[in-house]
């Protein structure tokens, strides 16, 4: 077996050293009834590299990959061009095969990268401090809700109806076990986000308001207005962003008064990967909340010779020290995805972010106008960045399936996102990025026209 260096000669010599007659002597403590006599029956035996690659390639070939068809899906996962150097650099063994930087003297590469990542995320979000990553946007969202519970000691959580339904489902799931009360609603299918309706749901018991920006229908809510209303009731505003590229074109949530900003970082550097691993981003506007934050934090310090260096810090918040009193149970996070994100953002810089965002918006405007010309189709959004909702006048789910049969990956139907919600069934969420060509948009529009006839 190519991954196992011990030879039978080695094994004999080592068994002799440890004083065992056979390998099974070392499994002496396992109750006899639970010991397996040989390899588990009925399963394949080891296979060479070529055979495994062939098996996996066959499975891969059964899928229609995004790059091989006109592609318009978003809804929390976005397809952007990832510069070739990103994947090269994250595959350097010193990054790829390192552990969590518990021995800082030989982990300065990971630690400095994390310090830079934290600074980039803080600036992107308009916040004071960002952590070293969470699993993904949805779990970061729940952790933010839990954190606000610790700060405000209140138990009522107001979710915007236009929060990604998977994120809302994660919050609802966890809240069942923590006795938090969730106030949520379906989104209204209208051009502007329903800020008035949301603000009306905030009361004196509310711990936080959770608002997606841009929202799940692609609209861009006025966060400042919501922040003001929340603060007036002593509640905090959690802003959720699932498309960081948007922040190249619209204002940062922290600058608009959001107290905690969380989000999905997948769009930069990470890739679609059928939903994971992704990258949870987590930041607080005011550094006074740092000790209630979940997850790892990297901080600057000096070594014994006075040279600048970096360490994991404020670890007493974490499970390995604080155990049942920890701010979270998170341990392993999304280190390598954070590396991919930070490299991509380093290549872009603020200027590249602005250009990338402008290109996304330009193509999205072009697509929205073109698709709205298809008979029976109308554009819902008064505002959007690179994703918008079309009303098709018929079940959008069925349309998506029919278009997939024509090798057009047409977007995400609201029926898929909000199953059972009849009022949303004719909505189609369409995302357009710099990877979308005008030709793709034309193909989509003509196919849509054919399908809707």
């Amino acid at each position, binding site marked *: 077996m190519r991954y196992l260096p011990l030879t039978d000669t080695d094994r004999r010599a080592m068994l002799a050293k440890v004083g065992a007659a056979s390998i099974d002597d070392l499994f002496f403590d396992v109750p006899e009834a639970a010991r397996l006599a040989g390899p588990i029956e009925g399963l394949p035996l080891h296979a060479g590299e070529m055979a495994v690659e062939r098996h996996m390639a066959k499975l891969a070939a059964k899928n229609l990959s995004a790059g091989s068809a006109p592609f318009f899906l978003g809804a929390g996962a976005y397809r952007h061009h990832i510069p070739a150097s990103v994947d090269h*650099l994250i595959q350097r063994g010193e990054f790829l095969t390192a552990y969590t930087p518990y021995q800082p003297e030989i982990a300065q590469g990971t630690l400095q990268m994390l310090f830079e990542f934290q600074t980039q995320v803080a600036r992107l979000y308009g916040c004071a401090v960002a952590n070293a990553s969470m699993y993904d946007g949805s779990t970061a969202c729940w952790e933010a809700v839990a954190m606000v519970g610790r700060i405000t000691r209140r138990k009522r959580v107001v979710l915007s109806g236009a929060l990604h339904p998977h994120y809302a489902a994660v919050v609802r799931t966890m809240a069942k076990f923590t006795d938090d009360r969730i106030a949520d609603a379906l989104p209204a299918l209208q051009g502007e986000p329903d800020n008035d309706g949301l603000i009306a749901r905030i009361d004196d018991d509310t711990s936080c308001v959770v608002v997606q920006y841009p929202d799940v229908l692609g609209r861009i809510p006025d966060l400042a207005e919501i922040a003001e209303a929340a603060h007036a009731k002593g509640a905090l505003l959690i802003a959720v962003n699932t498309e960081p590229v948007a922040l190249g074109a619209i204002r940062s949530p922290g600058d608009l008064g959001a107290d905690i900003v969380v989000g999905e970082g997948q769009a930069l550097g990470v890739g679609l990967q059928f939903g994971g691993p992704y990258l949870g981003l987590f930041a607080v506007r005011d550094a006074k909340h740092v000790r209630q934050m979940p997850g790892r934090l990297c901080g600057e310090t000096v070594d014994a010779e006075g040279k600048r260096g970096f360490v994991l810090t404020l670890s007493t918040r974490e499970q390995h020290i604080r155990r049942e009193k920890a701010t979270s149970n998170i341990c392993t996070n999304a280190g390598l995805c954070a590396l991919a994100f930070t490299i991509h953002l380093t290549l872009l810089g603020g200027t590249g972010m602005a250009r990338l965002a402008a290109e996304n918006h330009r193509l999205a405007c072009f697509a929205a106008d073109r698709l709205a010309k298809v008979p029976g189709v109308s554009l819902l959004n008064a505002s959007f960045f690179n994703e918008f909702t079309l009303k098709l006048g018929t079940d959008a789910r069925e349309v998506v399936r029919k278009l997939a049969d024509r090798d057009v990956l047409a977007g995400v139907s609201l029926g898929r996102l909000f199953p059972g919600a009849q009022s949303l069934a004719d909505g189609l969420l369409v995302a357009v990025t710099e990877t979308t060509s005008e030709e793709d948009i034309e193909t989509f529009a003509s196919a849509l026209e054919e399908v809707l006839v």
Partner: protein
Amino acid sequence: MNSPNASGWKPEMTRAEGSAPATVTGNRALMLEEPLLFEIGQAGVTGVDLPPVDAAAACRLGAMKRAGIIDLPGLSEPETVRHYTRLSRQNYGIDMGLFPLGSCTMKHNPRLNEKVARMAGFADLHPLQPQDTVRGALEVINQLAFWLLELTGMHGVAMTPKAGAHGELCGILCIRAALEARGDAREVVLVPESAHGTNPATAAFAGYRVENIPANSAGRVDLAALKARLGPDVAAVMITNPNTCGLFERDMMAISDAVHAAGAFVYCDGANFNAIVGKVRPGDLGVDAMHINLHKTFSTPHGGGGPGSGPVVLSEALSPFGPLPFTARDRDGVVHLVEEESADEFGHTQAFGRMAAFHGQMGMFTRALAYILSHGADGLKQVAEDAVLNANYVLRSLEDVLDAPFAASGPCMHEALLGDAGFGGGLSTLDLAKSLIDEGYHPMTMYFPLVVHGAMLIEPTETESKAGLDQFIVAMRGLAARAKAGDESMKHAPYHAPRRRLDETLAARKPVLCWEPGRSDL
């Protein structure tokens, strides 16, 4: 002879003498100092070619439109490649040498796995594509789920948890849901004092009160104390097996029986599954739920702290409560993604909810499946055997020079536990660990588990050769001798790493978590 040496280059070997002079740059040949991105990057620079922003272009952003650009420096591609390459060289990774971190299973990361994970048919799929366009991906999840069930002898598996601790949470929530379904409100989760910190943190996050159960003198759960504590208020017992002392819980079946008799469930922390994969099935030990760290046993890379993946295998009693979504094969052999709306159709009506957006760590699933198929049933069994043999070899090669508190009680599993008793001159485990860095090794897990003073938990894994272990043993024996002799110089190790010991107290007292311009140094 005309002009015997026009260039002036006169080869002459001299002997090295004296210590090296300081360099102007602070660099030391291949070891390069690297400034922060914010010190070398410039506003206006970008390493990606995109058209300049057209201020006159149509804008549908509304009132939230950003006025300026985000204050983030950029680097050109060559500068970027150098920045991160230089940073990478300040890291230690498995690719460089032995990484014996106990309970972390730092084994070789096969590159075939990286290759298959990057196939466009997996890497370039959107999670919400119509199912007919992703049947191969769903097949991968289902095949991996099948193997995990076979290897553990369990009934069901939740694939979506994103790391070990997330898997723990999933398992405990299944237990809570099962208890609530039978109208049984229980409040306490019992955790051995030697458990990973994630166990009590998880139980508390799921709304339970945590109580410790003690260990006996053989480094295992005290069965009598456990039995005495069990009662109608106990929801679950969280056990790590093999445990954090590197020992198999001999009484595991008796523990499970007692827990079940008390109406509670057995959660097993599967962090140490590498010791028994293919040899022992947790289902045969009475386990109700166990997470599997694909980034440990199944070789997906740790990546400097993730991403991980933590599928949870479940007993028949808990399976009905597993979260959504999951994959299931229909009568025609087609694999489906079962989500909220199709749960009823697939008979899964009691799911406790959803752990995360989308369907789990697909990029880790492809890697883990490639790893499993490469090994097969025979190779996986060999993995456990070699991992255990390597650990015992290290233990028996060091027990005469280092305190080995449980060595007398028999063989260890996949990791060897040593302590710092007998060190001289006020030296402790930290000093030995930092000296090990100078010898070219990543240190072992230190000061964990808490049940041994100055604990050193060494997990070599099966991917180390005998020759490699012999070299490590020589290094450890040398350091043990120096530690016992109270060698003062060990207090200042490491000497040869990119940094000397770092001031963690300063970092925590005056946290600097974000770079700020003008604050050039501390």
